[in-house]
């Protein structure tokens, strides 16, 4: 008789779980899961941030925080899944008769409760975090509206162009000063695009005939990569430009140099 032919189940779900955990392969899987979880926590908390774009705004800092913490709290799930895969790979039954179907997990009340509650908790945390972040950004934008730098952004197949009403300059790169809120008024000439200055941590649709608005609070200097995040045709992949968050002096110098060439950046 094979090991898998018969299994007498304990009478209660709790006893079943206890017996299940006491099995050698399950214990090994749980230990492996703990190990992989620790690895993913370390990667998510201390390594992953190095692979993310530079943080130049408060919004990008919020983005990075939520990415890090969701990676960390998701680590146990990834760890257990990888542990089960590893245990299955190492203990595979080559040439053996496949085992019978396992215990139907839908009858295991504690597992179902834990699984549902954990998923629900993740969703609630994500929603609450998002609402708080959105509300904070909106309140800051309203508070800073009078001192914001305005930049009118136009998406065209397949290039971005910018107009600074206060400075009266047209540009093909996006430069903004540090420590001054900026408001982007975004529109499209043709199809739908998506304005995504990566290091600023904001992204908004660029629609034809409708202006969308988004704000950013630059808190550090550094380069900006502006991309289109909406598949928009032949050269969508090339619909990118560059720019920078600059010191106020450098920004003023940049503006002055463009004004000197008739208000159009060369």
């Amino acid at each position: 008789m094979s090991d898998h032919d018969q299994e007498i189940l304990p009478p209660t779900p709790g006893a079943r779980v206890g017996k299940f955990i006491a099995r050698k392969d399950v214990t090994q899987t749980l230990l492996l899961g703990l190990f992989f979880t620790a690895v993913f926590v370390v990667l998510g908390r201390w390594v992953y941030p190095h692979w993310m774009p530079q943080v130049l705004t408060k919004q990008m800092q919020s983005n990075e925080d939520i990415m890090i913490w969701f990676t960390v709290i998701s680590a146990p799930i990834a760890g257990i899944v990888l542990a089960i895969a590893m245990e299955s790979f190492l203990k595979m039954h080559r040439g053996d008769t496949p085992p019978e179907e396992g215990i139907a997990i839908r009858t295991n009340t504690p597992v179902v409760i834990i699984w549902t509650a954990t998923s629900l908790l993740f969703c609630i945390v994500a929603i609450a975090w998002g609402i708080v972040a959105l509300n904070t950004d909106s309140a800051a934008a309203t508070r800073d509206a009078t001192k914001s730098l305005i930049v009118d952004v136009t998406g065209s197949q397949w290039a971005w162009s910018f107009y600074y009403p206060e400075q009266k300059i047209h540009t093909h790169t996006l430069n903004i000063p540090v420590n001054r809120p900026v408001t982007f008024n975004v529109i499209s000439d043709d199809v739908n695009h998506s304005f995504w200055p990566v290091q600023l941590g904001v992204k908004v649709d660029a629609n034809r005939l409708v202006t969308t608005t988004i704000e950013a609070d630059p808190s550090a200097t550094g380069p900006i990569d502006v991309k289109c995040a909406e598949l928009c045709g032949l050269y969508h992949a090339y619909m990118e430009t560059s720019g920078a968050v600059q010191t106020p002096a450098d920004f003023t110098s940049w503006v002055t140099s463009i004004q000197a060439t008739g208000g159009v950046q060369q």
Partner: protein
Amino acid sequence: MSVETAAPSKSKTAVGALIAIVLGLAVVAGVGLTLHTVSADPQPKLYATKVGTIVAADGKTYNHYTIADGVYPDPINSKAHGTTATSDGGHPSWPSYGPYTDFVLPANSYITVTLTVYDSGNQLNSPYFGNVVGTVDGTATYDGTSKTGLAPTEVEHTFTLHSLPTSTQDPLFVNVPLPLNTDAEMKAYNNDPTKLPVGHKVTFSFLTKGAGHYVWNCEYPCGDSTYQGFGAVMGQLGYMSGKVTVV
């Protein structure tokens, strides 16, 4: 009761694994070769011609290269898709640059481009592309007259060169609007497509930096009525868009 089955011999297992690996590699190689063949650029390339040296506004001396091309109301006259009387690339009504849409330029050089434009036009979607941008002095010469741009309603097509800023190559952005041919100038062509207008000659210069791969496209909505004039011809390489390689 279980049915015990004999495990395969080690040699059979090794042969099976070897066959699986070879088949896997063959599939990957086949897919790779197919994709490489399909993605090969069929367009001929125009190599810039050296005409001497020139001192630019920055006081430095550069090797001076030139290229010349045309902008046509149809692909047959452009000769970008073959030199026979029926070579239209399958789209006889599409406008087209020609005879080249792919250009090869030397690095760190002074490039002078001459475009002769034979097509009619109307209005740009974005007035921004009516500006001359990225040339050595911010101007282009239109039939001998230097200008910093054209009115958005007087544009036929544009030559707009750009790149990926996140790559390791130097950025390059050039935009030159091209003037339209009026209805009167297009009258003979509209009656007989072999009779092109005299055309307008546009000349501009820009500096290349390091080696890199760039693309150019037209920013005038010269496609069909879909996508605000950016359907049809604007969605296919080799007509109103192409590549620039700096070597």
